[in-house]
């Protein structure tokens, strides 16, 4: 998936107020809470057929770190 498209998808699925870049720290978003984390797990599962664990969620900071978790090879 193109990174640009992924950023848009996250904004839409997580219902964020402002656009994301790869350096945005997800945990620092005003919207971030357990419900958004759940939506993130669901969105990643739908798109990439992988389930992020609680440990993954704990370790994620920026969008880039999320991309690394999913696998950089899946992005262009």
């Amino acid at each position, binding site marked *: 998936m193109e990174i640009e498209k992924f950023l848009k998808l996250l904004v839409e*699925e997580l*219902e964020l107020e402002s656009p994301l870049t790869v350096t945005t720290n997800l945990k620092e978003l005003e919207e971030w809470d*357990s*419900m958004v984390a*759940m*939506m993130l*797990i*669901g*969105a990643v*599962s*739908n798109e990439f057929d992988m*389930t*992020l*664990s*609680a*440990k993954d*969620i*704990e370790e994620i900071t920026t969008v880039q770190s999320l991309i690394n978790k999913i696998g950089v090879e899946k992005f262009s």
Partner: protein
Amino acid sequence: MKKSILITGVTSGIGKAIAEELLLDSNIQLFGIGRDRTKIQHLINNNVNFTFINFDLFQIDKVEGLFKEEFNDIKFSGFIHCAGIEETLPISLYTPEKVRSIFQINVFSAIELLRFLSKKKHSLDGASFILMSSVMGELGQAGKVGYCSSKAALLGVVKSLALELSKRVIRVNAVLPGIVNTPLTEKLFEQLDEENVRKIKSMHPIGIGEVSDVVGILMYLLSDKSKWVTGQNFKIDGGYSIQ
């Protein structure tokens, strides 16, 4: 004559535990549905009283063929629907396809199996049918729209079918466990942080359950000791739901 009993979800967790218990009785002929036979190879090997049937319950349209080919001359005395899937997904991501998929295993496959099991050709009068629901069939939790609604649907099936089959004294009941230590729960706990896992455990006053804790009520419901019990929901949850 041997009693024939059918179990779905026989390869794991609660289904596997009840299968192991039933196979201790040489008067029981057990039929078990699952996909991954490697998980119960020890039960399948050299057990004349056990027939494993590799069948994907997503293929509901093949259930009819299953009864024609595998169960043609079998009249069952018992049925336990243990197959089930659990998932956590917010409503915003619950597409019709996702909803259908969880209902397919948890509810629709059970109804289709019961459609054939309810026929005189495939069940004895006085048989006992048990559906594995969950405390989540009566309670709620964020992210569980699919799981909770599918488990609640089973409770409707139980009450209606208990009335429909009462003429033949066939009993239909639901068992609603709290958290039981099985591969399903392991998967669920993997998605939660330690804090949440601790919280869930502490919500069960006498602790979370082991599969052996659920086997007893299933044995009771299958037996004649429960012959006046039908259309009921049995919560078995270490006190989780009374708070």
